[in-house]
């Protein structure tokens, strides 16, 4: 095998493919990146850890086709640090020679024959615009559980009914839900999948920059246990989480007693400042009155802080306490100039949504349901 490739092209491709490689692979070959060069001038790089697979195709001057497996992290480090000149890669016996300018590296070729077969490249179930996909995943994955008590909650639930796609995640303290439209290949498409949140958000960040993302689910992903994403020359698959996702429809409050609208940026700043005195696990208290929202934290024994921001209130006045991190997560996700809070009681979940104008309508496509903090009696 022998090919020449631009430094930036190789560095970007290897870095992307190798990003998910395990630190301590269960099988040594899984620490490798598989490089396949074919005579038509394309180079395909693949990595797989039995959970997630990544594959990218880039152009190269291929003098001689072939396949080789090398340590992925090492190749990524090397290619990032080489001078901005064309890189020549060739195999000699069980060594891989990497030459760039006057730099020479000789890497050990790993046994490519032992490398597992990647899940097949699936046919897409539909297409979604890249920026919408990235934003929606970021908005929802913040609410996924990071712990390991309930593995099912570390996923983002993706539900597809025709053109409507709903992303949802919850760690039982808060729940984030985003509804959007996409372009299914078949208008009666119907899928439910639970994708590991960490994989999904990394994938969305990596693929969203391009114009559109192809999504494959169900049979078209080569089996029910897989989801596939493809954008431009990049393809990735992930194993789905298995299990019954809790029923969440009853979590959304059916009525609203008080509603308040406040500038998102002003509230974020205020909460960040006031939360400085909130010790671990202690909440910030929000007091909504007509025209003003007061944020307080701290107790009489320790430091205290308070700040007020302008706000409009419809309905009875209300005082409610939230974990400041959970509140900031939600405010950071609405993505609009104004945020709307809907309340029933201080002990019941509040719903946060975004809106563009202070006196406009709420954008119901994104909702963040947050359970308050209370004090035992």
């Amino acid at each position, binding site marked *: 095998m022998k090919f020449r490739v631009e430094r930036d092209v190789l560095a970007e491709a290897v870095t992307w493919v190798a990003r998910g490689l395990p630190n301590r692979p269960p099988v040594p070959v899984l620490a490798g990146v598989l490089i396949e060069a074919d005579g038509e001038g394309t180079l395909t790089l693949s990595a797989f850890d039995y959970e997630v697979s990544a594959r990218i195709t880039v152009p190269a001057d291929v003098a001689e086709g072939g396949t080789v497996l090398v340590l992925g992290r090492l190749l990524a480090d090397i290619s990032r640090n080489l001078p901005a000149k064309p890189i020549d890669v060739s195999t000699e016996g069980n060594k891989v020679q990497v030459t760039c300018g006057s730099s020479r590296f000789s890497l050990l070729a790993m046994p490519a024959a032992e490398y597992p077969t990647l899940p097949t490249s699936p046919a897409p179930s539909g297409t979604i615009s890249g920026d919408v996909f990235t934003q929606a995943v970021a908005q929802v994955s913040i609410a996924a559980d990071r712990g390991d008590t309930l593995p099912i909650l570390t996923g983002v639930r993706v539900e597809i009914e025709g053109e409507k796609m709903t992303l949802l995640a*919850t760690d039982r303290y808060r729940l984030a839900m985003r509804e959007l439209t996409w372009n299914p290949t078949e208008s009666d498409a119907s899928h439910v999948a639970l994708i590991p949140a960490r994989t999904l958000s990394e994938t969305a960040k990596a693929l969203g920059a391009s114009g559109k993302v192809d999504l494959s689910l169900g049979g078209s992903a080569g089996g029910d246990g897989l989801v596939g994403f493809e954008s431009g020359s990049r393809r990735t698959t992930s194993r789905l989480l298995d299990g019954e996702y809790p029923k969440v429809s009853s979590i959304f409050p059916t009525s609203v007693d008080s509603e308040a609208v406040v500038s998102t940026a002003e509230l974020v700043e205020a909460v960040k400042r006031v939360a400085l005195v909130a010790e671990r696990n202690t909440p910030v208290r929000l007091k909504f009155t007509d025209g003003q929202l007061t944020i307080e934290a701290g107790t009489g024994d320790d430091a205290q802080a308070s700040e007020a921001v302008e706000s409009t209130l419809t309905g009875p006045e209300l005082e409610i306490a939230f*974990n400041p991190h959970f509140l900031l997560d939600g405010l950071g996700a609405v993505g609009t100039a104004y945020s709307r809070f809907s309340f029933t009681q201080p002990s019941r979940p509040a719903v946060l949504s975004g809106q563009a104008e202070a006196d406009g309508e709420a954008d119901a496509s994104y909702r963040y349901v947050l359970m308050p*903090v209370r*004090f*035992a009696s």
Partner: protein
Amino acid sequence: MSRRQFALPGRDRPEPPDDTGCTVLHVDMDAFFASASLLAHPDLVGTPVIIGGSGGRGVVLSATYEARRFGVASAMPMGRARRLCPTATVLAPDHRLYSRISDAVMATLATFTPAVEPLSVDEAFLDVAGSIRRLGSPAAIAQAIRDAIVDEQGITCSIGVAPTKFVAKLASNLAKPDGLVVVPVEEVVPFVQQLPVAALWGVGDKTEEVLTRLGLRTVADIAHTPLDTLKRGLGEAAGDHLHALAWGRDPRRVEAVAREKSIGADMTFEYDVDDAAWIHRRLLQLSDKVAARMRAAEMMGRTVSIKVRFADFTTITRSRTLRDPTDTSRVVYDAAKDLFDALGLQRARIRLVGVRMEKLVPTEQAPIQGLLDEPDHGWRDADLAVDRASARFGAGSVRPASLLDR
């Protein structure tokens, strides 16, 4: 109770000791459990009596001085105690009686000074510096306390009067039974330095071994060893600490409200047990008890720890810190059971298990992050209902079905 006994140093001066500056009192009830039990058995006064569990694994909780003369001591296995003193009467403990008398004694102490630091049910430190003008010298206050407790409760106590906690505690031990010992300021150093090293606060078997190896047998030896040598042998902190004590310096103050740092309960089994399901039920029983005590104390805790002692007396503890503070039996049990299961024991023979809650905060200051899917009434409400039923119909009137006697 002090773990070790020491010979009484002689006080051959005839004049009453000068108690100026001796504002720390250590009040220790004499053979508390035994004396209290004898209130209901006046016929046994003056005879050897042992209080403790009479089962195969019972230990001596307390014994009258008549029984102690035979070598019976607290924490001794009951079988051994009976062999030492076959004529003794063995009485089962009555904890309700003890806690009632203990509360009354602490209330009496509080009338002498607000600075009362209870150490356990039967002993407390008092700082009487603020009461001297009102009630007289520390020794006079100590005598008044002894008189009041005998009058009100019918049981005796011993009091040590000294400038520091450490010396006061040693002094009360020397005063026993039914006595009062004052260690004047100028006698503190000779008093302390005549003691064996094991008498120092913080010296257990391990440290004693180290000190003996260094050739240090009495407190005077420690006092006259260069500080650096001590620190090399014992470590920075322990060296400093022992050197200070050896010169009668004890920086600890009497802390009026000793806030409870943890609440726990242990259970020693009749026979060694290797049945995990049975141990789970005992953990449930202990979790129930601990959580009920937390609710009674209006405290919540975040750290659950378990203690397991095996047949060969090796003891391990494991702990886990929860996300939110709790006082719910069910939550405590779930964590305790997880901790126990994580040990991965294969039919290990277990002698004792314990459950303890740490990192306590007052309930009204404990923030609870609610769950979106929580029911309107959760386990905590059930616990509170059980507490009310227990208060009305007696402890254990409502309990988990798996703990019903079959």
